[in-house]
């Protein structure tokens, strides 16, 4: 016969488990209230049902066990048998035996024969024969030594059955809510998930295709009348259905994506937890007293990142202990607590996780680093002298650089900061930045994406070639009229919300061959310029692109081995049209833009009238604006010092002696108006030129600027380097 009842086995297992649970619960209730007939009825029915359906499925051992159990319960039900604790134990054994058989079936194993001793004991109990076989069960007290022996023998019989898993009460109590899965299996799954989502991009493309077909003019065919309009209607319906399907699928896949990724997320505590002890031990070994404060270890990251994160974090911590925190006597002299402090913290920042390793030690000794770089032959003395503080700090990331005068066991050997940087930037698609406070400590910040498996990617077009950017670097996309582009210090900038942002044309930067470059007429089709603004830390760059093509979550695939040296490309994605698109690596682009900038600018050594170079203090909270103003002024021979807000500016102005001050208005801590006011109170600056540069163009702001004592008020929109330099020259005489 064609019918196969075997296919009901899975359902049987499910239902039998329910009944077994009910049996267990019922037996519990029985021990408390042996006379509850409704309860006895209920467990009788469960045993009966298991017997019935197992018999139909020819699961004889289960049928037999359930049958004997049912008989005992039946006898209990009709009152021919009285409940006793001994009987209760036997019934529990029966249910456990049943459960073991059902679980064996669930695992797909061959069922062993029913436990004969258990069945016999049940059969005897049902007939009330237990009294004759084991005369002491009902007659004597529970403490009788014979009974436990007899029951014990039954228990060990069950346990010694070679094919039957021993009924284990313990394992039933803690039903596992986790499953161990091999890492590589999970990786495969997530990789596959990525592929599925990539291939879904192709479905989206098909949707666009069908829309295009729909819009096609059927020309002569349309004259054919009915048939053609019917076809069109069909096509339209098809397109609509397809759209719904694609959208529905997209929802599901997005959920699949996030659920799959979560499976591989691990808390940072894996990396952070051992840190406290390790830092104390390291500190002990070098005779320092250091406490370590850890926070944010509950933040979760993709396991891929966690694995690779450990080494760089430990290296930075070692550095902090070894180079950062000073010797106790040095700290004492500096008026600090003898006990140094290292903080390791993590926090989420948009699509990033920021891990900070900071110490309250001596900070990176700028002059020592500068000297050492020269001594090691990394750069010439003149070049080293020209580097500002920030650039000097960047030197520590050069391969082969180590500032410790003696190579100690802890750091300065083997891996260096260059390895840390490579690991974070190249392997983990992250960013490293350093904040150095001489005398007060150093803070290394590692910005990492949450996961490497999938990334939000923006596809843009440049000269007809698509390029990708991972979205966490992109701050905005905006279109500006050509006229808003300014030329400052021989390069193009735009003002975005009170900040100068350098503009770079990607086709120049990437050296796209001229035959690809569209003629200007073609580009004029667009209104103005399309700018993709990217950011790493505080460094911004606006890239001129032709068009935004798409924005989606995509799997970024690594470059093949032979192309790995292309640092500008961090990977590739496949589009719906099955094209390969390069993902441009933003940190490298920023670096290239910076280098191009310093190369293009010839620092004019001609000093202002009088011989000695004039000193100018530039105060602005935007890094980009500061840098650009600095470039402009340095290009004209001024010596520039930068300050990042009003308070910093005031401090630096009081410490130093400047010939002029340039300040922004809106800044944290102290605004430009207040700064100007305060400087005017200082004898040193009563008569020095102070120039306010701001995007506030209102008349009342200008009046306020003059009121507080500024000599000039330049609106950034009208900014023009010659303007600024002319004003300065006029003011300085």
């Amino acid at each position, binding site marked *: *016969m*064609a*019918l196969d*009842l075997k296919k*009901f086995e899975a*359902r*049987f297992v499910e*239902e039998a488990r329910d009944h077994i649970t009910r049996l267990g619960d019922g037996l519990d209730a029985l021990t408390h209230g042996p006379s509850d007939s409704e309860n006895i*009825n209920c467990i009788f*029915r469960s045993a*009966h*049902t298991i*017997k*019935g*359906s197992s*018999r*139909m*499925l*020819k699961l004889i051992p289960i049928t037999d066990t359930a049958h004997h159990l049912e008989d005992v319960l039946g006898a209990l039900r009709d009152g021919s048998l009285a409940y006793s604790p001994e009987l209760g134990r036997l019934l529990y054994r029966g249910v456990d035996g049943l459960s073991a058989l059902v679980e064996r079936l669930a695992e797909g194993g061959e069922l062993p024969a029913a436990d004969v001793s258990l069945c016999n004991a049940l059969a005897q109990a049902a007939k009330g024969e237990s009294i004759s076989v084991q005369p002491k069960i009902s007659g004597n007290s529970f403490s009788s030594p014979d009974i436990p022996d007899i029951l014990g023998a039954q228990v060990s019989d069950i346990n010694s059955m070679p094919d039957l898993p021993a009924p284990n009460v313990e394992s039933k109590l803690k039903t596992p809510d986790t499953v161990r899965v091999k890492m590589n299996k999970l990786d495969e799954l997530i990789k596959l998930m990525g592929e599925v989502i990539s291939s879904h991009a192709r479905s989206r493309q098909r949707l666009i295709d069908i829309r295009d077909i729909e819009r096609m003019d059927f020309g002569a065919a349309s004259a054919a009348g009915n048939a053609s309009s019917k076809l069109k209607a069909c096509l339209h319906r098809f397109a609509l259905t397809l759209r719904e399907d694609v959208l529905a699928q997209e929802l599901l896949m997005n959920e699949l994506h996030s659920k799959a990724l979560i499976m591989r997320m691990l808390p940072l505590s894996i990396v952070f937890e051992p840190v406290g002890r390790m830092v104390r031990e390291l500190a002990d070994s070098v005779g320092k007293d250091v406490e370590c404060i850890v926070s944010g270890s509950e933040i979760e990251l993709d396991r891929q990142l966690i694995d690779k994160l450990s080494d760089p974090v430990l290296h930075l911590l070692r550095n902090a202990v070894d180079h950062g925190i000073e010797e106790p006597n040095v700290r004492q002299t500096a008026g600090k607590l003898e006990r140094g402090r290292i903080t390791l913290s993590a926090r989420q920042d948009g699509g990033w996780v920021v891990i900070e390793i900071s110490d309250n030690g001596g900070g990176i000794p700028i002059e020592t680093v500068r000297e050492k770089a020269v001594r090691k032959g990394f750069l010439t003395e003149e070049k080293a002298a020209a580097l500002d503080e920030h650039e000097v700090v960047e030197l520590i990331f050069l391969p082969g650089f180590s500032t410790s005068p003696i190579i100690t066991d802890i750091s300065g050997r083997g891996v260096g900061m260059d390895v840390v940087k490579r690991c974070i930037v190249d392997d983990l698609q992250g960013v490293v930045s350093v904040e150095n406070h001489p005398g007060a400590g150093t803070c290394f910040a590692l910005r990492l994406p949450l996961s490497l498996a999938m990334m939000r990617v923006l596809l843009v077009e440049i000269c007809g070639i698509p390029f990708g950017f991972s979205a966490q670097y992109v701050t905005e996309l905006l279109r500006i009229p050509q006229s808003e582009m300014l030329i400052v210090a021989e390069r193009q900038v735009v003002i975005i919300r009170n900040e100068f942002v350098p503009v770079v044309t990607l086709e120049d930067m990437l050296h796209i061959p001229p035959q690809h470059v569209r003629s200007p007429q073609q580009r004029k089709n667009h209104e103005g310029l399309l700018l993709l603004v990217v950011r790493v830390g505080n460094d911004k760059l606006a890239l001129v692109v032709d068009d935004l093509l798409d924005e989606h979550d995509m799997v970024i695939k690594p470059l093949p081995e032979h192309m790995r040296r292309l640092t500008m490309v961090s990977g590739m994605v496949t589009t719906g049209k099955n094209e390969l698109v390069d993902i441009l690596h933003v940190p490298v682009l920023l670096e290239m833009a910076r280098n191009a900038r310093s190369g293009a600018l010839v620092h004019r050594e001609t000093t202002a009238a009088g011989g000695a170079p004039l000193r100018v203090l530039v105060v602005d909270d935007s890094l980009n604006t500061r840098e650009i103003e600095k470039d402009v002024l340095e290009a004209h021979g001024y010596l520039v010092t930068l300050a990042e807000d009003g308070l910093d500016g005031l401090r630096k102005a009081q410490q130093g002696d400047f010939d002029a001050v340039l300040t922004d208005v809106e800044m944290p801590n102290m605004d430009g108006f207040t700064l100007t006011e305060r400087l005017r109170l200082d004898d040193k600056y009563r008569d020095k030129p102070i120039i306010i540069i701001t995007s506030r163009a209102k008349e009342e702001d200008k009046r306020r600027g003059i009121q507080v004592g500024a000599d000039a008020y330049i609106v950034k929109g009208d900014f023009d380097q010659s303007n600024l330099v002319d004003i300065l020259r006029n003011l300085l005489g």
Partner: protein
Amino acid sequence: MQILVVDDDSLACEMTAAVVESVGHDVLLAENAVDAMEKLSAAPGIAMVISDMNMPLVSGIDLFRELRSQGVKLPFILLTGDNPDGLLQEEPTLDGCMTKDFSIEETLPQMIADVMARYAANSGAY
């Protein structure tokens, strides 16, 4: 032919139904005697009842007796988890009584055919 299968164990009920369907009959399911009575009055096309014996409140044999007392003369096969002989002794007018076991695949269709043949012969005799 439309057959009503009555069993409170939904798994057993479906398995029985699968057997009945495999030989080309239509099946209606009821999960207890009360449900069965309702199905019977709602679907006049039912030509046979196959019921489990052991059900809560109203057993299979009680259902049979209730139907007969209401004048419902449909062929009635009783399925049981136990030995059928006792039940047949108790209620000899049952058209069929058999044990639910793995052989149900063969025995049930055979019994259905036998019972129907008997009814056909009887009706022919009248």
